[in-house]
């Protein structure tokens, strides 16, 4: 999961710089936003499983 997120981050930042250099600021912002959303969707399921595991282990 860590390497996946890091790869998405690197790709998004490279795309961001390329798009900024070619003068498409809005698309660069949209790319950053899309990358952030993709990474968030990946992390949210992890957070949910972690919290439910803690709940079940400690009987919350």
């Amino acid at each position: 999961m860590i390497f996946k997120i890091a790869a998405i981050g690197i790709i998004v930042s490279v795309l961001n710089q390329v798009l900024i250099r070619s003068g498409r600021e809005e698309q660069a912002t949209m790319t950053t936003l899309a990358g952030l959303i993709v990474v968030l969707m990946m992390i949210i399921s992890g957070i949910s499983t972690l919290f439910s595991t803690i709940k079940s282990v400690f009987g919350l």
Partner: protein
Amino acid sequence: MNIVALCGVALIAAILSVTLKKHSPETSIIISIAAGIILLMAILSKIIPAVNQIQTLISNAGMSAEYAGILFKAVGICLICQFSADSCKDAGEAALASKVEFAGKIMILILALPLFEKISQIALSLINSRLQ
């Protein structure tokens, strides 16, 4: 997962997070949260036998299972609150982190208040019996 693997995960996540911090800070924070999730999940699978052992110890000692439940609930609240507060602090939101910690303290206080009431009742009955 043994301790070497856990330390390796933490180190690799730290290096990746620092590398990405300049270009996309949000991804670096999410990498650190993901590493925290992986480490905590690996530890929680080991913690279950320890929890069962402590429960059997407490039941052998003659204490009621209610006290052990309150103890483990407090530990769980502490874990969740610490995780969230540390993630907020890493993201630079110290105010949110302190609020999460405060919420955790209040929840543990609410959890522990019935026990405190029982202790005070026992103390009161002891004092009254001594006076009479």
